[in-house]
């Protein structure tokens, strides 16, 4: 599109050159050759599509465009690699998936993309630049016939500024090439002034585009006592609550949630089968532990209580003190019912003292003292924090409730806490579910070498690789792992070995969650046989 309307003439139109029109590309090519051969160089040819051979016919030189592409591509690669190495390797080093900060293979995709990006854009802009585009005003446009140059007509143009330009000769030359027409093209006589309105419009646009930037800058640099304006809330306003507060999010109004019905907390499921324990529980060491069914019961009790005023029937079975868990929150919810619900509920028929009276811990209870419940630590009296009881994990927690204050009871201590072990009736041989056969032995050996030998060493002398390494580093906090050939250990029954493997001992963590029951027994068996193999007696030979 050429022009804004003239109005003001700067100078009288001048002849600008001659233009010949053709309707066939072969005539057009022939004409171009003639023009070239006549020595004119300020010429041009216009066609609706790139005519094959016109470059040579008109003597057009190849373009330097590919160089722009090459250089821009190289810049793209360099930019990307430098950027990646600097940002991830230097300015903001950050370990991810174990890869080095400067990971060349991972940098290649982006380097490739930027190469192409730079090269492609440069090519297009260089093409436009070399062509002098955009150029909205062009003398050739002043010829109305020229509209068909983008349709089906071909034009040859000789510029009046050519060294050898002679109007009559050029006209004659062109007319000799069987054109449809030969026209004189006059210089574009429209004003070269850019309309004021355009300046004004552009200025307005520029100023308007600055407004957001100014606003942002202002907000960043000025302090205000008003909170900022939230377009998106993100996580600035979260409906969080403290543990004992009321909430509207849940229908029951409790903030802290009771265990989900049907779930069993880790360590909450125990059986008094010696196979799992490693010892035979007797009356004194009776398991007082919420097994899965009781947990379920508990929860449904809570729910029931919450909904109906009536208390739930007590847990029938054994020793299950329903934890006083619920009560603290119940008030929050329906204070009216609470008195009834609560006392009614607590009474399991057990050995347990009536705990609810002292809602607060003080588990001065005597009897748990000796028992050392394997699986269930916090039982004595979960103070108010509700779900604590059922949820407490730590199968290994054997804190004698009596000694430990309630607080301690709550965080399941590491196995290390166990002081002197009361006499349990450890199994002297494998539980009946397993046989000491080759398969069992092989399993034990496999697992021992996989799991135990890193510290204890393959032969069990406590000189595994980890230990050696720690010594080499002179680690101050490293305790040499116990040798299984220790005299003390040699005397331990297999059940005790099993117990230690399961629950840990001293610095050794429990492997109850790493190895399954069979594997633990197998390892215990292997340990016993290791001991025997390393301390063989003459009497063994007879066997």
């Amino acid at each position, binding site marked *: *599109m*050429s022009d804004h309307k003239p109005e003001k003439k700067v100078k009288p139109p001048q002849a600008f050159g001659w233009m010949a029109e053709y309707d066939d*590309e072969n005539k057009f090519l022939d004409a171009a050759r003639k023009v070239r051969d006549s020595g004119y160089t300020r010429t*041009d*040819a*216009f*066609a*609706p*599509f*790139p*005519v*094959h051979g*016109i*470059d040579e016919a008109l003597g*057009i030189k190849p*373009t330097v*465009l*590919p160089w722009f*592409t090459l250089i821009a591509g190289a810049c793209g690669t360099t930019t990307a690699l430098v*950027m*990646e190495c600097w*940002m*991830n390797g230097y*300015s*903001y080093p*950050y370990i*991810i998936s174990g*890869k080095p900060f400067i*990971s060349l293979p991972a*940098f290649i*995709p*982006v380097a*490739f*993309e*930027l190469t*192409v*990006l730079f*090269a*492609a*854009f440069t*090519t*297009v802009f*260089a*093409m436009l630049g*070399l*062509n002098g*585009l*955009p*150029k*909205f*005003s*062009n003398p050739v*446009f002043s010829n109305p016939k020229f*509209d068909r*140059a*983008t*349709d*089906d007509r071909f034009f040859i143009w000789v510029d009046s500024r050519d060294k050898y330009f002679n109007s009559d000769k050029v006209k004659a030359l062109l007319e000799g090439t069987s054109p449809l027409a030969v026209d004189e093209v006059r210089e574009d006589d429209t004003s070269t002034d850019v309309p004021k309105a355009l300046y004004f419009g552009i200025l307005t646009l520029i100023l308007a585009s600055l407004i957001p930037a100014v606003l942002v800058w202002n907000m*960043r640099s000025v302090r205000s006592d008003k909170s900022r304006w939230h377009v*998106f809330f993100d996580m600035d306003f979260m409906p969080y609550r403290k543990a004992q507060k009321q909430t509207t999010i849940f229908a029951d109004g409790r903030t802290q949630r009771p265990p989900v019905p049907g779930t069993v907390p880790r360590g909450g499921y125990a059986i008094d089968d010696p196979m799992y324990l490693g010892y035979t529980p007797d009356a004194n060491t009776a398991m007082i532990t919420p097994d899965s069914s009781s947990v379920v019961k508990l929860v449904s009790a809570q729910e029931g209580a919450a909904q109906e005023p009536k208390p739930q029937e007590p847990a029938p079975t054994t020793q299950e003190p329903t934890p006083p868990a619920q009560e603290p929150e119940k008030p929050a919810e329906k204070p009216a019912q609470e008195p009834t619900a609560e006392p009614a509920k607590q009474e399991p028929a057990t050995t347990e003292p009536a705990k609810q009276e002292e809602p607060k811990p003080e588990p001065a209870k005597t009897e748990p003292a000796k028992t050392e419940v394997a699986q269930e630590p916090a039982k004595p009296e979960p103070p108010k924090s509700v779900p604590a009881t059922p949820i407490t994990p730590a199968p290994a927690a054997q804190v004698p409730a009596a000694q430990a204050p309630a607080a301690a009871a709550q965080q399941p201590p590491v196995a290390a806490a166990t002081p002197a072990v009361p006499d349990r009736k450890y199994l002297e041989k494998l539980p009946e579910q397993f046989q000491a056969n080759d398969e069992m032995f092989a399993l034990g050996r496999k697992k021992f070498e996989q799991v135990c030998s890193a510290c204890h060493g393959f032969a069990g002398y406590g000189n595994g690789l980890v230990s050696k390494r720690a010594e080499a580093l002179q680690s101050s906090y490293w305790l040499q792992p116990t040798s299984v050939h220790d005299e003390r250990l040699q005397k331990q029954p297999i059940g005790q070995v099993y117990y230690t493997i399961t629950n840990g001992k001293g610095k050794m963590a429990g492997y109850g969650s790493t190895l399954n029951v069979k594997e633990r027994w197998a390892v215990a068996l292997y340990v016993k046989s290791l001991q025997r193999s390393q301390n063989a007696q003459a009497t063994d030979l007879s066997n």
Partner: protein
Amino acid sequence: MSSVLTSGIDNTYDTPGRRTPLVTGGHNYSAVTRMVSRISEEAQPTVWWIAMGIAVPLLIMFVSLIGHLFLTGVGVWGNMSPVFWAWPIVNFVFWVGIGHAGTLISAILFLFRQNWRTSINRAAEAMTIFAVVCAGTFPGIHVGRAWLAFWLTPYPSLNLWMWPQFRSPLLWDVFAVGTYASVSLVFWYMGMIPDLATFRDRSKTKWRRMIYGILCLGWSGSSRHWMRYEKAYAILAALATPLVLSVHTVVSFDFAVSQLPGWHTTIFPPYFVAGAIFSGFGMVLTLLIPVRAIYNLKDLITPRHLENMCKIILATGSMVGLAYITEFYMAWYSQNPNEYFTFVNRAFGPYWWAYWIMFTCNVISPQVFWFRIFRQNVILMWIVTIFVNIGMWFERFVITVTSLSRDFLPSSWGYFQPTWVDIGMLVGSFGLFTTLFCLFCKYLPIVAISEVKGVMSQHAHDEHRHEHGHSH
């Protein structure tokens, strides 16, 4: 007009040694100009309004669903442990794949001197851009807080002084798709400049003339300009070819650099690229078959063009099939139990239906193109391309969802179910795509006029030479 002559010649057949013309109907240059320009100059046919009438409400639904997503959070989707990459990513890969045919037709077929590309490349490139728009939307809104998606770019943050993680394939994806979108756009626009000049010169009204005049940057058709223009076009084609490959390669890296069975396999890059070309051509045919009928472009987009595209679909479909077989074979050959399980699970697990839809649509359905009747009958062809589109969507679904839903840890296995928002967004993205494509048909030259003329000229030239040759 002259379309009476349309189906005179069977130009799907080359006598060896002689090329049949790519433009039928005996048109001259001016007729080609008119044939394309009138689409934009005249009132749109009823079908166009019907298409817009369907597409725009879908687009509005799409935008509303995105609003719903922003206000509510990504929980509106069915993404749930263990399937955290689900429909949005499936849609992303699906659309990005479709976005490959356009640049492929423009670039690779240009490098291979496949002149038949000229009639279809413009529409295919437009399709590419619109598909990439749809594709870009999904990861954009998938990042959680979409308004902070600009954090993905390496800009110097004023407060934190942090940089993006260039070792992450997801960031490669940002660069790859970003580069692809912008280079495709430029390529498309550059290709349109001469045709916009044609529109300018045919304009009857001042405004139209001015707008197209500005858009075409004052193109005059000077041979010097043409020379640089052609050079630039060739260079762009040479750059765009590896770019096309790289984009879907990087998309495949998103999956394949992980250790997940079914994702971590080295065939993924070329396999994804073949699949992308496959689906792209499927979509090009799906669009162009109606377009050539509606706008009466049968002399430009001839049976030859359609047949060639069918053959490419057949070839790439078979490549995809070979990749499926190789993957399955290697799952066994590697003797990796997880890998093997994943593949058996794909075919016979809870998502068996998705797998077999994928397999049937992608591998078996294109095999009908061995038969000439399917390459010639547009209705049958169109139906097959619909199957191809469906199959390729399911391919991404199978890859993404089945691998995630059952990975190493059986205790965390799950079964993904989409929500209505998921489905609505997929449908809505078609609304966005169709709206853009309809607008394109209305306002821009949908066939590369100048390139078609160049091919006509060349053919005339060859004919000329042949006559000479025979006379001697």
